[in-house]
Protein backbone atom coordinates (compact mmCIF):
# COMPACT_ATOMS: atom_id res chain seq x y z
CA UNK A 1 0.00 0.00 0.00
CA UNK A 2 1.12 3.54 -0.54
CA UNK A 3 1.56 6.06 2.25
CA UNK A 4 -1.76 7.67 1.29
CA UNK A 5 -3.75 4.44 1.48
CA UNK A 6 -2.25 3.52 4.84
CA UNK A 7 -2.97 7.00 6.12
CA UNK A 8 -6.57 6.91 4.93
CA UNK A 9 -7.13 3.65 6.76
CA UNK A 10 -5.67 5.13 9.92
CA UNK A 11 -7.80 8.26 9.71
CA UNK A 12 -10.93 6.19 9.08
CA UNK A 13 -10.25 4.29 12.28
CA UNK A 14 -8.85 6.96 14.58
CA UNK A 15 -10.26 10.20 13.20
CA UNK A 16 -8.71 13.29 14.70
CA UNK A 17 -6.12 11.46 16.69
CA UNK A 18 -4.04 10.87 13.58
CA UNK A 19 -2.91 14.09 11.98
CA UNK A 20 -2.73 14.87 8.26
CA UNK A 21 -0.07 13.26 6.11
CA UNK A 22 2.83 15.67 6.03
CA UNK A 23 3.53 16.67 2.44
CA UNK A 24 6.99 15.56 3.24
CA UNK A 25 10.03 16.11 1.21
CA UNK A 26 10.97 12.45 0.75
CA UNK A 27 9.19 10.11 3.10
CA UNK A 28 5.70 11.07 4.20
CA UNK A 29 4.83 10.81 7.87
CA UNK A 30 1.78 11.29 10.04
CA UNK A 31 1.56 12.92 13.42
CA UNK A 32 -0.15 10.88 16.11
CA UNK A 33 -1.51 12.19 19.38
CA UNK A 34 0.80 11.10 22.16
CA UNK A 35 -1.95 9.48 24.18
CA UNK A 36 -3.06 7.29 21.26
CA UNK A 37 0.31 5.87 20.26
CA UNK A 38 -0.10 2.35 21.70
CA UNK A 39 -3.59 2.00 20.27
CA UNK A 40 -2.49 3.17 16.82
CA UNK A 41 0.54 0.90 16.84
CA UNK A 42 -1.50 -2.10 17.90
CA UNK A 43 -3.98 -1.42 15.12
CA UNK A 44 -1.19 -1.06 12.59
CA UNK A 45 0.15 -4.42 13.64
CA UNK A 46 -3.10 -6.33 13.91
CA UNK A 47 -5.08 -5.03 10.95
CA UNK A 48 -4.59 -7.76 8.33
CA UNK A 49 -4.42 -5.20 5.51
CA UNK A 50 -1.74 -3.13 7.21
CA UNK A 51 0.15 -5.95 8.99
CA UNK A 52 3.12 -3.91 10.20
CA UNK A 53 5.02 -6.71 11.87
CA UNK A 54 8.30 -4.91 12.46
CA UNK A 55 9.42 -1.74 14.20
CA UNK A 56 12.56 -0.91 12.27
CA UNK A 57 13.72 2.18 14.02
CA UNK A 58 12.79 4.50 16.81
CA UNK A 59 14.52 7.86 17.03
CA UNK A 60 14.13 10.96 19.12
CA UNK A 61 14.87 14.40 17.73
CA UNK A 62 15.37 17.40 19.98
CA UNK A 63 13.92 20.73 18.78
CA UNK A 64 14.66 23.39 21.45
CA UNK A 65 13.24 26.18 19.25
CA UNK A 66 9.85 24.48 19.07
CA UNK A 67 10.24 23.33 22.67
CA UNK A 68 9.56 19.80 21.54
CA UNK A 69 11.12 16.40 21.41
CA UNK A 70 9.91 14.37 18.48
CA UNK A 71 9.73 10.61 18.59
CA UNK A 72 9.88 9.02 15.15
CA UNK A 73 8.70 5.47 14.54
CA UNK A 74 9.77 3.76 11.33
CA UNK A 75 7.54 0.80 10.66
CA UNK A 76 7.92 -1.95 8.11
CA UNK A 77 5.76 -4.85 7.05
CA UNK A 78 7.56 -7.98 5.88
CA UNK A 79 4.36 -9.60 4.69
CA UNK A 80 3.09 -6.61 2.68
CA UNK A 81 6.48 -5.00 1.90
CA UNK A 82 5.39 -1.50 2.77
CA UNK A 83 6.56 1.08 5.29
CA UNK A 84 5.13 3.97 7.24
CA UNK A 85 6.42 6.67 9.55
CA UNK A 86 4.68 7.91 12.70
CA UNK A 87 5.69 10.92 14.73
CA UNK A 88 4.79 12.09 18.19
CA UNK A 89 5.61 15.47 19.63
CA UNK A 90 6.45 15.59 23.31
CA UNK A 91 6.87 18.49 25.66
CA UNK A 92 10.56 19.20 26.08
CA UNK A 93 10.27 19.91 29.80
CA UNK A 94 8.68 16.55 30.53
CA UNK A 95 9.09 14.14 27.61
CA UNK A 96 6.87 11.20 28.35
CA UNK A 97 5.17 8.68 26.13
CA UNK A 98 3.73 5.21 26.55
CA UNK A 99 6.03 2.34 25.69
CA UNK A 100 5.16 0.17 22.70
CA UNK A 101 7.29 -2.71 23.92
CA UNK A 102 4.09 -4.74 24.30
CA UNK A 103 3.45 -4.39 20.57
CA UNK A 104 6.91 -4.98 19.09
CA UNK A 105 9.70 -6.59 21.10
CA UNK A 106 12.38 -4.66 19.22
CA UNK A 107 11.08 -1.53 20.93
CA UNK A 108 12.64 -2.75 24.17
CA UNK A 109 16.23 -1.85 23.29
CA UNK A 110 15.36 0.96 20.91
CA UNK A 111 13.37 2.75 23.63
CA UNK A 112 16.09 2.18 26.18
CA UNK A 113 18.56 3.84 23.84
CA UNK A 114 16.38 6.90 23.32
CA UNK A 115 15.72 7.12 27.05
CA UNK A 116 19.45 7.07 27.67
CA UNK A 117 20.47 9.59 25.03
CA UNK A 118 17.49 11.95 25.05
CA UNK A 119 15.80 11.38 28.39
CA UNK A 120 12.44 10.37 26.95
CA UNK A 121 10.48 8.55 29.62
CA UNK A 122 8.71 5.56 28.09
CA UNK A 123 6.03 4.75 30.63
CA UNK A 124 5.24 1.08 31.01
CA UNK A 125 8.60 -0.06 29.69
CA UNK A 126 9.63 -3.21 31.62
CA UNK A 127 13.29 -2.36 32.03
CA UNK A 128 14.00 1.30 31.42
CA UNK A 129 17.68 1.66 32.29
CA UNK A 130 20.56 3.39 30.63
CA UNK A 131 22.08 1.32 27.87
CA UNK A 132 25.02 3.25 26.41
CA UNK A 133 26.09 5.55 29.23
CA UNK A 134 27.05 4.36 32.72
CA UNK A 135 24.14 3.97 35.13
CA UNK A 136 25.17 6.97 37.24
CA UNK A 137 25.78 9.34 34.34
CA UNK A 138 24.16 12.75 34.62
CA UNK A 139 22.30 14.25 31.69
CA UNK A 140 21.27 13.01 28.28
CA UNK A 141 23.97 13.59 25.65
CA UNK A 142 21.87 14.02 22.52
CA UNK A 143 19.91 16.95 23.92
CA UNK A 144 20.96 20.14 22.20
CA UNK A 145 21.65 21.97 25.46
CA UNK A 146 23.59 19.11 27.01
CA UNK A 147 26.62 20.05 29.07
CA UNK A 148 29.01 17.29 29.86
CA UNK A 149 29.93 16.88 33.48
CA UNK A 150 33.61 17.78 33.98
CA UNK A 151 34.52 14.50 35.59
CA UNK A 152 33.11 11.09 36.32
CA UNK A 153 34.53 9.02 39.21
CA UNK A 154 37.63 11.21 39.24
CA UNK A 155 38.19 10.63 35.53
CA UNK A 156 38.22 13.88 33.63
CA UNK A 157 35.93 13.96 30.60
CA UNK A 158 37.75 16.76 28.81
CA UNK A 159 41.35 17.47 27.96
CA UNK A 160 43.20 20.39 26.52
CA UNK A 161 43.41 20.37 22.77
CA UNK A 162 46.99 20.00 21.57
CA UNK A 163 46.08 22.42 18.79
CA UNK A 164 45.20 25.28 21.17
CA UNK A 165 47.34 28.30 20.50
CA UNK A 166 48.23 27.21 16.99
CA UNK A 167 47.55 29.75 14.28
CA UNK A 168 46.45 28.65 10.86
CA UNK A 169 48.66 29.65 7.95
CA UNK A 170 45.85 31.14 5.86
CA UNK A 171 44.65 33.19 8.80
CA UNK A 172 48.14 34.58 9.27
CA UNK A 173 48.23 35.50 5.59
CA UNK A 174 44.83 37.14 5.87
CA UNK A 175 46.01 39.16 8.82
CA UNK A 176 49.16 40.15 7.01
CA UNK A 177 47.15 41.16 3.94
CA UNK A 178 44.79 43.19 6.10
CA UNK A 179 47.74 44.94 7.66
CA UNK A 180 48.85 45.92 4.20
CA UNK A 181 52.09 44.03 4.18
CA UNK A 182 51.38 41.91 1.10
CA UNK A 183 54.95 41.13 0.24
CA UNK A 184 56.08 40.33 3.73
CA UNK A 185 55.51 36.62 3.88
CA UNK A 186 54.79 35.71 7.48
CA UNK A 187 57.05 33.26 9.18
CA UNK A 188 54.43 30.65 10.00
CA UNK A 189 56.73 27.87 11.09
CA UNK A 190 57.55 29.46 14.36
CA UNK A 191 53.91 29.93 15.28
CA UNK A 192 52.92 26.52 14.09
CA UNK A 193 55.55 24.81 16.14
CA UNK A 194 55.50 27.32 18.95
Amino acid sequence: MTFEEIHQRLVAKFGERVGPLAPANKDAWALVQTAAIVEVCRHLKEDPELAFDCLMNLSGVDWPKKNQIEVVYHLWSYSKRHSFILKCQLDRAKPEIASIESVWKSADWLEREQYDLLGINFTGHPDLRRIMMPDDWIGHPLLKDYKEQPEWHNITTTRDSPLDGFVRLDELRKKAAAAGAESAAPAPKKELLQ
Partner: protein
Amino acid sequence: MTSPKPLEIPTMDMTSKEVLRRIEVGGDMLLNMGPQHPSTHGVINFLVQTDGEVMKRAIPEVGYLHRSLEKIGERCTYNGYMPYTDRVDYIAAMFANQGWAMAVERLLGTVVPERGEYCRVIACELNRIASHLISVGTMAMDVGAVTPFPYALREREFINDLLEELCGARLTYNYLRIGGVAFDLPTGYEEKVATFLDHFEKILDEFNRLITYNEIFIKRLAHLAPIPAQMAIDYCLVGPNLRASGVKFDVRKDLPYSIYPALQFNVPVGKGEMGTLGDAWDRFWCRVEEMRQSCRILRQCLAQIPKGGEIMAKMPRKIKIAEGTEAYSRIESARGDMQYYAVAGPGENAWRVKIRTGSFTAMGIIDALSRGLMIADLVALIASLDVVAPEIDR
Protein backbone atom coordinates in the same frame (compact mmCIF):
# COMPACT_ATOMS: atom_id res chain seq x y z
CA MET B 1 18.98 -41.10 30.98
CA THR B 2 16.07 -39.16 32.37
CA SER B 3 14.94 -36.06 30.59
CA PRO B 4 16.01 -32.86 32.33
CA LYS B 5 13.50 -31.06 34.48
CA PRO B 6 11.96 -27.98 32.88
CA LEU B 7 13.79 -24.91 34.10
CA GLU B 8 12.19 -22.48 36.42
CA ILE B 9 12.97 -18.99 35.35
CA PRO B 10 12.79 -16.70 38.35
CA THR B 11 10.56 -13.71 37.97
CA MET B 12 12.17 -10.43 38.84
CA ASP B 13 10.90 -7.06 39.80
CA MET B 14 11.71 -5.30 36.58
CA THR B 15 10.42 -1.91 37.59
CA SER B 16 13.62 -0.87 39.30
CA LYS B 17 16.51 0.64 37.43
CA GLU B 18 18.81 -1.22 39.74
CA VAL B 19 17.50 -4.56 38.55
CA LEU B 20 20.89 -5.90 37.61
CA ARG B 21 22.27 -5.30 41.04
CA ARG B 22 19.36 -7.13 42.68
CA ILE B 23 19.08 -10.41 40.83
CA GLU B 24 17.83 -12.88 43.37
CA VAL B 25 20.52 -15.47 43.03
CA GLY B 26 19.06 -18.04 45.44
CA GLY B 27 21.41 -20.95 44.92
CA ASP B 28 22.38 -19.95 41.40
CA MET B 29 25.67 -18.58 40.33
CA LEU B 30 25.98 -15.09 38.90
CA LEU B 31 28.80 -14.80 36.40
CA ASN B 32 30.21 -11.87 34.55
CA MET B 33 31.18 -13.01 31.10
CA GLY B 34 33.15 -10.15 29.69
CA PRO B 35 33.74 -7.34 29.07
CA GLN B 36 37.22 -8.58 28.14
CA HIS B 37 36.30 -12.03 26.89
CA PRO B 38 37.73 -13.37 23.65
CA SER B 39 34.52 -14.96 22.46
CA THR B 40 32.23 -11.97 22.94
CA HIS B 41 33.57 -10.41 19.72
CA GLY B 42 34.51 -7.14 21.30
CA VAL B 43 33.87 -5.42 24.55
CA ILE B 44 30.48 -6.67 25.73
CA ASN B 45 29.55 -7.92 29.15
CA PHE B 46 27.07 -10.70 29.80
CA LEU B 47 25.58 -11.15 33.22
CA VAL B 48 24.91 -14.83 33.31
CA GLN B 49 22.74 -16.43 35.93
CA THR B 50 23.47 -20.12 35.90
CA ASP B 51 22.55 -23.31 37.63
CA GLY B 52 25.65 -25.37 37.01
CA GLU B 53 26.27 -25.40 33.28
CA VAL B 54 22.74 -24.37 32.36
CA MET B 55 21.90 -20.70 32.05
CA LYS B 56 18.72 -19.32 33.44
CA ARG B 57 19.34 -15.99 31.91
CA ALA B 58 22.05 -14.01 30.14
CA ILE B 59 21.66 -10.27 30.20
CA PRO B 60 23.81 -8.35 27.73
CA GLU B 61 25.34 -5.14 29.02
CA VAL B 62 26.57 -2.98 26.19
CA GLY B 63 27.91 0.54 25.90
CA TYR B 64 31.61 -0.04 26.54
CA LEU B 65 32.42 1.18 23.05
CA HIS B 66 29.99 4.06 22.87
CA ARG B 67 31.78 6.87 21.06
CA SER B 68 28.71 9.06 20.56
CA LEU B 69 28.96 8.84 16.79
CA GLU B 70 25.45 10.24 16.47
CA LYS B 71 26.42 13.36 18.40
CA ILE B 72 29.55 13.73 16.26
CA GLY B 73 27.29 13.58 13.23
CA GLU B 74 25.51 16.68 14.46
CA ARG B 75 28.78 18.59 14.72
CA CYS B 76 30.44 17.61 11.44
CA THR B 77 29.62 18.74 7.95
CA TYR B 78 27.95 16.16 5.74
CA ASN B 79 31.19 15.35 3.96
CA GLY B 80 33.22 15.52 7.14
CA TYR B 81 31.17 12.80 8.78
CA MET B 82 32.18 10.18 6.22
CA PRO B 83 35.40 9.00 7.96
CA TYR B 84 33.51 8.64 11.23
CA THR B 85 30.99 6.27 9.67
CA ASP B 86 33.87 3.85 9.07
CA ARG B 87 34.08 3.44 12.81
CA VAL B 88 30.47 2.31 13.09
CA ASP B 89 31.45 -1.12 11.86
CA TYR B 90 35.15 -1.59 11.28
CA ILE B 91 34.77 -5.03 9.75
CA ALA B 92 32.38 -3.88 7.04
CA ALA B 93 33.15 -0.17 6.91
CA MET B 94 32.22 0.24 3.26
CA PHE B 95 28.54 -0.32 4.03
CA ALA B 96 28.45 2.29 6.75
CA ASN B 97 29.96 4.68 4.23
CA GLN B 98 27.32 3.79 1.69
CA GLY B 99 24.45 4.18 4.13
CA TRP B 100 25.51 7.70 5.01
CA ALA B 101 26.24 8.64 1.41
CA MET B 102 22.82 7.39 0.35
CA ALA B 103 21.06 9.22 3.16
CA VAL B 104 22.60 12.55 2.16
CA GLU B 105 22.06 11.85 -1.52
CA ARG B 106 18.40 11.30 -0.76
CA LEU B 107 18.32 14.61 1.09
CA LEU B 108 19.86 16.34 -1.90
CA GLY B 109 18.30 14.29 -4.68
CA THR B 110 21.69 13.53 -6.17
CA VAL B 111 22.05 10.86 -8.84
CA VAL B 112 25.37 9.02 -8.75
CA PRO B 113 27.00 8.33 -12.14
CA GLU B 114 26.84 4.74 -13.29
CA ARG B 115 30.55 4.02 -13.06
CA GLY B 116 30.54 5.43 -9.54
CA GLU B 117 27.74 3.04 -8.59
CA TYR B 118 29.66 0.10 -10.03
CA CYS B 119 32.76 1.11 -8.08
CA ARG B 120 30.63 1.23 -4.94
CA VAL B 121 29.10 -2.17 -5.50
CA ILE B 122 32.47 -3.79 -6.30
CA ALA B 123 33.97 -2.33 -3.12
CA CYS B 124 30.95 -3.28 -1.03
CA GLU B 125 30.72 -6.85 -2.24
CA LEU B 126 34.43 -7.40 -1.68
CA ASN B 127 33.90 -6.03 1.80
CA ARG B 128 30.93 -8.33 2.33
CA ILE B 129 33.07 -11.37 1.54
CA ALA B 130 35.78 -10.11 3.92
CA SER B 131 33.26 -9.54 6.69
CA HIS B 132 31.58 -12.92 6.26
CA LEU B 133 34.99 -14.61 6.27
CA ILE B 134 35.71 -13.11 9.67
CA SER B 135 32.27 -14.13 10.85
CA VAL B 136 32.40 -17.78 9.77
CA GLY B 137 36.04 -18.12 10.77
CA THR B 138 35.56 -16.82 14.28
CA MET B 139 32.34 -18.75 14.69
CA ALA B 140 34.12 -22.00 13.89
CA MET B 141 36.89 -21.04 16.30
CA ASP B 142 34.45 -20.16 19.07
CA VAL B 143 32.94 -23.63 18.98
CA GLY B 144 36.34 -25.22 19.00
CA ALA B 145 37.42 -25.65 15.38
CA VAL B 146 40.60 -23.61 15.15
CA THR B 147 41.75 -24.66 11.69
CA PRO B 148 39.20 -22.78 9.54
CA PHE B 149 40.06 -19.44 11.12
CA PRO B 150 43.50 -19.01 9.49
CA TYR B 151 41.99 -20.33 6.25
CA ALA B 152 39.38 -17.58 6.35
CA LEU B 153 41.81 -14.87 7.38
CA ARG B 154 44.24 -15.85 4.63
CA GLU B 155 41.55 -15.21 2.02
CA ARG B 156 40.55 -12.00 3.74
CA GLU B 157 44.12 -10.74 3.38
CA PHE B 158 43.74 -10.88 -0.41
CA ILE B 159 40.61 -8.74 -0.17
CA ASN B 160 42.34 -6.33 2.19
CA ASP B 161 45.12 -5.99 -0.36
CA LEU B 162 42.59 -5.37 -3.12
CA LEU B 163 40.76 -2.75 -1.09
CA GLU B 164 44.03 -1.15 -0.05
CA GLU B 165 44.93 -0.79 -3.70
CA LEU B 166 41.54 0.78 -4.32
CA CYS B 167 41.44 3.32 -1.51
CA GLY B 168 44.66 3.15 0.47
CA ALA B 169 43.21 1.71 3.65
CA ARG B 170 42.79 -1.84 4.85
CA LEU B 171 40.08 -1.41 7.43
CA THR B 172 38.56 2.05 7.65
CA TYR B 173 38.22 2.88 4.02
CA ASN B 174 36.62 6.31 3.75
CA TYR B 175 36.24 5.42 0.07
CA LEU B 176 32.74 6.59 -0.72
CA ARG B 177 31.86 10.22 -1.16
CA ILE B 178 28.51 11.92 -1.21
CA GLY B 179 27.71 11.75 -4.91
CA GLY B 180 30.15 9.02 -5.88
CA VAL B 181 33.46 7.50 -4.87
CA ALA B 182 36.84 9.02 -4.07
CA PHE B 183 38.99 7.13 -6.58
CA ASP B 184 38.46 5.34 -9.84
CA LEU B 185 39.49 1.69 -10.16
CA PRO B 186 43.25 1.45 -10.68
CA THR B 187 44.56 0.08 -13.99
CA GLY B 188 44.20 -3.66 -14.25
CA TYR B 189 42.00 -3.83 -11.18
CA GLU B 190 39.29 -5.83 -12.92
CA GLU B 191 41.75 -8.58 -13.80
CA LYS B 192 43.04 -8.70 -10.27
CA VAL B 193 39.56 -9.08 -8.83
CA ALA B 194 38.75 -11.75 -11.43
CA THR B 195 41.91 -13.67 -10.51
CA PHE B 196 40.93 -13.50 -6.86
CA LEU B 197 37.43 -14.75 -7.62
CA ASP B 198 38.76 -17.70 -9.64
CA HIS B 199 40.87 -18.63 -6.67
CA PHE B 200 38.27 -17.91 -4.02
CA GLU B 201 35.39 -19.88 -5.49
CA LYS B 202 37.50 -23.03 -5.30
CA ILE B 203 38.46 -22.16 -1.74
CA LEU B 204 34.80 -21.85 -0.80
CA ASP B 205 34.20 -25.45 -1.83
CA GLU B 206 37.24 -26.44 0.17
CA PHE B 207 35.91 -24.45 3.10
CA ASN B 208 32.60 -26.27 2.86
CA ARG B 209 34.37 -29.61 2.93
CA LEU B 210 36.54 -28.49 5.80
CA ILE B 211 33.93 -27.12 8.14
CA THR B 212 30.41 -26.38 6.88
CA TYR B 213 29.48 -29.99 6.20
CA ASN B 214 31.80 -31.41 8.81
CA GLU B 215 29.83 -33.87 10.88
CA ILE B 216 31.17 -32.77 14.25
CA PHE B 217 30.48 -29.16 13.41
CA ILE B 218 26.93 -29.91 12.28
CA LYS B 219 26.24 -31.88 15.45
CA ARG B 220 27.53 -28.99 17.51
CA LEU B 221 25.35 -26.35 15.84
CA ALA B 222 22.21 -28.04 14.53
CA HIS B 223 19.15 -27.45 16.73
CA LEU B 224 21.11 -24.83 18.65
CA ALA B 225 19.11 -21.73 19.61
CA PRO B 226 16.63 -21.79 16.73
CA ILE B 227 14.83 -18.52 16.10
CA PRO B 228 11.32 -18.87 14.64
CA ALA B 229 10.56 -16.47 11.80
CA GLN B 230 7.91 -14.61 13.77
CA MET B 231 10.26 -14.03 16.69
CA ALA B 232 13.04 -12.88 14.37
CA ILE B 233 10.74 -10.28 12.82
CA ASP B 234 9.37 -9.20 16.19
CA TYR B 235 12.88 -8.57 17.54
CA CYS B 236 13.80 -6.93 14.23
CA LEU B 237 16.62 -9.29 13.33
CA VAL B 238 18.06 -8.44 9.94
CA GLY B 239 20.30 -9.81 7.27
CA PRO B 240 21.61 -13.39 7.38
CA ASN B 241 20.14 -13.87 10.88
CA LEU B 242 16.66 -13.16 9.53
CA ARG B 243 17.10 -15.10 6.32
CA ALA B 244 18.34 -18.14 8.24
CA SER B 245 14.91 -18.21 9.91
CA GLY B 246 13.31 -18.62 6.51
CA VAL B 247 12.25 -15.04 5.79
CA LYS B 248 13.24 -14.25 2.24
CA PHE B 249 14.11 -10.61 2.48
CA ASP B 250 17.14 -8.82 1.15
CA VAL B 251 17.19 -5.05 0.76
CA ARG B 252 19.19 -5.48 -2.44
CA LYS B 253 16.32 -7.50 -3.93
CA ASP B 254 13.21 -6.13 -2.26
CA LEU B 255 13.99 -2.43 -2.06
CA PRO B 256 16.60 -2.26 -4.80
CA TYR B 257 19.12 0.55 -4.68
CA SER B 258 22.24 1.39 -6.62
CA ILE B 259 22.70 -0.98 -9.60
CA TYR B 260 21.42 -4.11 -7.89
CA PRO B 261 18.33 -4.36 -10.14
CA ALA B 262 20.69 -4.99 -13.07
CA LEU B 263 22.41 -7.89 -11.34
CA GLN B 264 21.38 -11.52 -11.05
CA PHE B 265 21.81 -13.21 -7.70
CA ASN B 266 19.96 -15.49 -5.34
CA VAL B 267 19.02 -14.81 -1.76
CA PRO B 268 20.06 -17.80 0.34
CA VAL B 269 17.37 -18.69 2.86
CA GLY B 270 17.71 -21.10 5.76
CA LYS B 271 15.96 -24.43 5.19
CA GLY B 272 16.58 -26.25 8.43
CA GLU B 273 18.63 -28.73 6.41
CA MET B 274 20.61 -30.13 9.31
CA GLY B 275 18.31 -29.43 12.22
CA THR B 276 15.64 -26.92 13.11
CA LEU B 277 14.83 -23.99 10.85
CA GLY B 278 16.73 -20.93 11.99
CA ASP B 279 19.30 -22.71 14.13
CA ALA B 280 22.93 -21.67 14.44
CA TRP B 281 24.05 -23.89 11.58
CA ASP B 282 21.54 -22.23 9.23
CA ARG B 283 22.95 -18.84 10.11
CA PHE B 284 26.46 -20.12 9.40
CA TRP B 285 25.40 -21.67 6.10
CA CYS B 286 23.59 -18.50 4.99
CA ARG B 287 26.81 -16.51 5.31
CA VAL B 288 28.83 -19.05 3.37
CA GLU B 289 26.25 -19.02 0.57
CA GLU B 290 26.14 -15.24 0.56
CA MET B 291 29.85 -15.18 -0.15
CA ARG B 292 29.19 -17.29 -3.22
CA GLN B 293 26.44 -14.90 -4.34
CA SER B 294 28.77 -11.95 -3.79
CA CYS B 295 31.24 -13.64 -6.13
CA ARG B 296 28.47 -13.87 -8.74
CA ILE B 297 27.64 -10.19 -8.28
CA LEU B 298 31.30 -9.22 -8.58
CA ARG B 299 31.74 -11.16 -11.82
CA GLN B 300 28.73 -9.42 -13.34
CA CYS B 301 29.96 -6.03 -12.17
CA LEU B 302 33.36 -6.63 -13.75
CA ALA B 303 31.67 -7.56 -17.03
CA GLN B 304 29.15 -4.71 -17.04
CA ILE B 305 31.10 -1.78 -15.64
CA PRO B 306 31.11 1.07 -18.16
CA LYS B 307 34.54 1.78 -19.58
CA GLY B 308 35.37 5.30 -18.53
CA GLY B 309 32.96 7.96 -17.42
CA GLU B 310 32.42 10.02 -14.32
CA ILE B 311 32.73 8.53 -10.86
CA MET B 312 31.42 11.59 -9.01
CA ALA B 313 28.27 13.59 -9.54
CA LYS B 314 28.63 17.36 -9.66
CA MET B 315 28.46 18.37 -6.03
CA PRO B 316 28.44 21.82 -4.48
CA ARG B 317 31.55 22.54 -2.49
CA LYS B 318 29.53 23.18 0.62
CA ILE B 319 26.43 21.09 1.09
CA LYS B 320 23.51 23.00 2.55
CA ILE B 321 20.08 21.48 2.90
CA ALA B 322 16.83 23.12 3.95
CA GLU B 323 16.33 22.80 7.69
CA GLY B 324 14.08 19.98 8.80
CA THR B 325 14.36 17.96 5.60
CA GLU B 326 14.68 14.34 6.48
CA ALA B 327 15.68 11.20 4.68
CA TYR B 328 15.88 7.54 5.47
CA SER B 329 18.25 5.15 3.78
CA ARG B 330 18.30 1.38 3.97
CA ILE B 331 21.12 -0.74 2.65
CA GLU B 332 21.99 -4.40 2.96
CA SER B 333 25.16 -4.39 4.99
CA ALA B 334 27.12 -7.51 5.82
CA ARG B 335 25.20 -7.61 9.08
CA GLY B 336 21.87 -6.91 7.44
CA ASP B 337 19.56 -4.02 6.93
CA MET B 338 21.52 -0.92 7.99
CA GLN B 339 19.49 2.23 8.26
CA TYR B 340 20.39 5.86 8.52
CA TYR B 341 17.86 8.48 9.56
CA ALA B 342 19.16 11.96 8.83
CA VAL B 343 17.47 15.28 9.59
CA ALA B 344 19.04 18.35 8.02
CA GLY B 345 20.01 21.25 10.25
CA PRO B 346 20.12 24.96 9.52
CA GLY B 347 23.78 25.14 8.56
CA GLU B 348 26.16 22.80 6.86
CA ASN B 349 25.59 19.90 9.18
CA ALA B 350 22.88 17.49 10.12
CA TRP B 351 20.53 18.15 13.01
CA ARG B 352 20.15 14.52 13.92
CA VAL B 353 21.76 11.34 12.69
CA LYS B 354 20.39 8.04 13.82
CA ILE B 355 22.07 4.81 12.83
CA ARG B 356 20.08 1.64 13.27
CA THR B 357 22.45 -1.29 12.91
CA GLY B 358 21.89 -5.01 12.70
CA SER B 359 24.06 -5.88 15.69
CA PHE B 360 22.09 -3.62 18.01
CA THR B 361 18.77 -5.38 17.49
CA ALA B 362 20.49 -8.78 17.41
CA MET B 363 21.77 -8.17 20.94
CA GLY B 364 18.24 -7.53 22.13
CA ILE B 365 17.20 -11.10 21.40
CA ILE B 366 19.98 -12.78 23.40
CA ASP B 367 18.18 -12.41 26.74
CA ALA B 368 15.14 -14.22 25.36
CA LEU B 369 17.13 -16.93 23.59
CA SER B 370 19.59 -17.69 26.36
CA ARG B 371 17.10 -19.22 28.77
CA GLY B 372 17.87 -22.89 29.16
CA LEU B 373 21.02 -22.91 27.03
CA MET B 374 24.40 -24.16 28.23
CA ILE B 375 27.10 -21.58 28.88
CA ALA B 376 29.19 -22.96 26.02
CA ASP B 377 26.17 -22.54 23.74
CA LEU B 378 25.98 -18.85 24.59
CA VAL B 379 29.37 -18.44 22.93
CA ALA B 380 28.09 -20.20 19.82
CA LEU B 381 24.91 -18.14 19.87
CA ILE B 382 26.74 -14.81 20.00
CA ALA B 383 29.07 -15.93 17.24
CA SER B 384 26.19 -17.13 15.07
CA LEU B 385 24.44 -13.77 15.35
CA ASP B 386 27.65 -12.13 14.10
CA VAL B 387 27.54 -9.12 16.39
CA VAL B 388 30.32 -6.57 16.23
CA ALA B 389 30.70 -4.54 19.40
CA PRO B 390 31.33 -1.06 17.91
CA GLU B 391 28.29 -1.49 15.71
CA ILE B 392 26.12 -2.11 18.76
CA ASP B 393 27.35 0.89 20.69
CA ARG B 394 28.22 3.34 17.95
